[in-house]
């Protein structure tokens, strides 16, 4: 059995508004755990594996640039030295942490696996979740290169499509460059070594001579995973959104977005330009408004619209919880449309070039999906949430001085308590399984939930139709509904043709509808599209709402899909249901 080790690292500030205490956390989970459990931060699927030291080496820089320093560096070399030291420190620490995963030192061990059977198990690094800045540091490449492939975006005649066909940036290709330079110049110090490596112009940074993955049997192109949060959602917020704002005007975009009905958790009432700080949720919700806001906007060319729509389709597809060959085929088509229209951003003067690492890396999502499953497996959203649960909450319980050791001690206590709690739960579940409960009927979770007592009772239909113009056709509609219901209930084959406009004196109008009981809203829960989604619950609002209910009302009736042609394919037999009592 392979234990698929997934690592995630990220830097976070321990204090929110003041101070510069930085916490570089390294988390670990296993790919063997179900994805939906792994995505829950409080499920215990993630552990804090290490705290990586972090320093900006400002004192080093000061000492080296002082006249008394015995090491003579020019200005550029001195400026690059803190970065070199920071990356060396990171790789040295990581080498210690992942030492048990190295090819030469890896040993199998026996663990209790599924079905209470003993399995021989071996741990392998299969994924590393990090933001783009850290991906460059892990792969030891410059920010202008790609950590996954050997495409060189800034070379003459290169295009963003090169990333689709370029060879992977394997660990051996990076190490070859480093070894070659070191063999040619065995005695140069690290700051000169970096300059020599950069002269090779192959995208390797040269900040680190011995990367931590040197002794692993996988290279960074295999274990670095594209991050959905930064690589897709934040990318759209940072780049295409700003292009749209510069094209149609910031005020126009804000106004168009603010006029659209609410979708998701956020409604951008004042647009997006005035938001000072946006979270991942806002980045994701913005994608829901862009397509209708862009349609019909001034100065938008068809090519630019197709480019943005293709990007939206790509981001939408890569975050779906289940993908098959058909959907991946659709994804390829959207990539072709995106590449075909990408130059429009340059033609419109929005960009000088399209060498944006995250735009170029979008194609690597497809490779990740084919190799390691859906992208939600590799989102940094869970590790980002873990910052709040683990380091930040533990730091708050310390005296804020020499906090590392107390934090680790508290973490040990918390972990012990959690493991004990889960063991007790597991034991009780085994005991209760001897008396299994009847299986739950999940269809009970779907349907309509409406208040037993109407929100307003005994309202005259004439007052309703007189008050609201949109209800002018209510009486005619009741007549038609009643006639159709009579025709359906009747045993005779004769049908009544009811058309035109009717009033209360019409023979088709049932007298019982002279006074009505009204509801302003009800809850509708729909079954998921497939087993990878959760059921969705919505409040369906009526357009006609009394003043005292208007605090939650959006100002318009909910738009819904109605089963309009049920008889054609016999669906009426499935949808014919009755309301049951409480």
């Amino acid at each position, binding site marked *: 059995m392979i234990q698929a080790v997934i690592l995630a690292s990220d830097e976070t500030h321990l204090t929110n508004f003041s101070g510069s205490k930085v916490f570089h956390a390294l988390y670990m989970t296993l790919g063997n755990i179900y994805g939906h459990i792994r995505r829950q931060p409080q499920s215990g699927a993630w552990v804090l594996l290490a705290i990586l030291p972090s320093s900006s080496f400002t004192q080093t820089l000061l000492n080296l640039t002082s006249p008394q320093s015995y090491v003579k560096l020019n200005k550029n070399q001195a400026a690059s030295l803190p970065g070199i030291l920071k990356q060396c420190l990171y790789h040295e620490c990581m080498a210690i942490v992942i030492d048990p995963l190295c090819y030469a030192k890896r040993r199998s061990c026996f663990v209790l696996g599924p079905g209470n059977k003993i399995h021989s198990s071996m741990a392998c690094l299969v994924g590393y979740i990090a933001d783009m800045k850290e991906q460059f540091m892990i792969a030891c490449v410059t920010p202008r290169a790609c950590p996954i492939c050997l495409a060189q975006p800034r070379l003459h005649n290169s295009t963003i499509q090169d990333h689709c066909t370029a060879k992977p940036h394997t660990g051996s290709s990076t190490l070859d460059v480093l070894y070659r330079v070191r063999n040619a110049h065995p005695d140069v110090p690290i700051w000169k070594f970096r300059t020599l490596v950069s002269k090779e112009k192959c995208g390797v940074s040269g900040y680190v001579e011995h990367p931590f993955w040197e002794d692993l049997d996988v290279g960074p192109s295999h274990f670095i995973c594209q991050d959905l949060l930064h690589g897709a959602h934040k990318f759209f917020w940072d780049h295409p959104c700003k292009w749209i704002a510069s094209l149609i005007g910031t005020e126009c975009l804000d106004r168009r977005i603010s006029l659209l009905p609410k979708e998701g958790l956020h409604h951008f009432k004042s647009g997006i330009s005035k938001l000072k700080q946006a979270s991942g949720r806002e980045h994701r919700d913005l994608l829901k408004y862009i397509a209708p806001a862009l349609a*019909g906007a001034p100065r938008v060319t068809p090519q630019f619209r197709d480019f943005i729509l293709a990007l939206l389709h790509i981001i939408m597809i890569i975050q779906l919880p289940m993908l098959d060959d058909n959907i991946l085929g659709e994804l390829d088509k959207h990539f072709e449309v995106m590449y075909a229209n990408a130059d429009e951003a340059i033609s419109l003067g929005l960009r000088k070039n399209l060498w944006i690492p995250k735009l170029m890396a979008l194609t690597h999502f497809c490779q990740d999906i084919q190799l390691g499953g859906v992208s939600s497996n590799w989102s940094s959203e869970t590790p980002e949430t873990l910052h709040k649960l683990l380091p930040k909450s533990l730091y708050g319980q310390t005296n804020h001085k020499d906090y590392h050791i107390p934090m680790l001690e508290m973490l040990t206590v918390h972990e012990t308590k959690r493991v004990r709690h889960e063991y007790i739960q597991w034991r009780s579940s085994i005991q209760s399984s001897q008396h299994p409960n009847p299986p739950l009927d999940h269809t009970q979770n*779907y349907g309509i939930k409406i208040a037993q007592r109407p929100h307003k009772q005994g309202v005259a239909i004439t007052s309703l139709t007189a008050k609201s113009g949109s209800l002018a056709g209510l009486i005619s509609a009741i007549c038609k509904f009643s006639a159709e219901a009579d025709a359906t209930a009747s045993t005779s084959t004769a049908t009544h043709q009811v058309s035109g406009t009717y009033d209360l004196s019409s023979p088709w109008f049932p007298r019982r509808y002279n006074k009505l009981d009204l509801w302003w809203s009800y809850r509708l829960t729909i079954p998921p599209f497939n087993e990878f989604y959760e059921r969705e619950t919505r409040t369906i609002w009526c357009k006609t709402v009394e003043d005292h209910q208007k605090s939650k009302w959006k100002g318009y009736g909910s738009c819904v899909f109605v089963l309009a042609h049920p008889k054609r394919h016999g669906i009426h037999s499935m949808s014919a249901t009755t309301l049951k009592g409480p």
Partner: protein
Amino acid sequence: MGFIVCLPPHSKALSDITKTKLFLAEYRPAEVQLVFRASSRLSISEDKQFENVPMAYVLWYTDIPSVPSDTSGMFVVRKALDHANHPQGAVISLNKIIFHCPLHPSIIGDPRPQLTKENISAFATEFYINPFSSGQVYQRVQQSH
């Protein structure tokens, strides 16, 4: 407050429709105007067979076209009007409302100052079915054409 629970087993209908890719042909967008029933304060003894269940009065939009619009990349619908240019409405059983429709009004050019979120749907002539509103809507809408 107590609740009445309606049990439309439309899960089966939905799954069948997504399999046969008839989603767009079978469903029609509408705006819910009123949820009502005949008042329970009145005697309904005249019709003992009558089952007094809540119903909805909706205003129809036009049928969903088979292909998305060339100009927006989304499916476009309009308010359905009768021969006298009045909105087409209907009373329907509540269990025919299958799920929420992400309908967004089209805004052509620079939006006029008097437009607000509340009144824009009254002024708009076209409405987009926004497939990007959620993953489930995306799969249902995009994979059915």
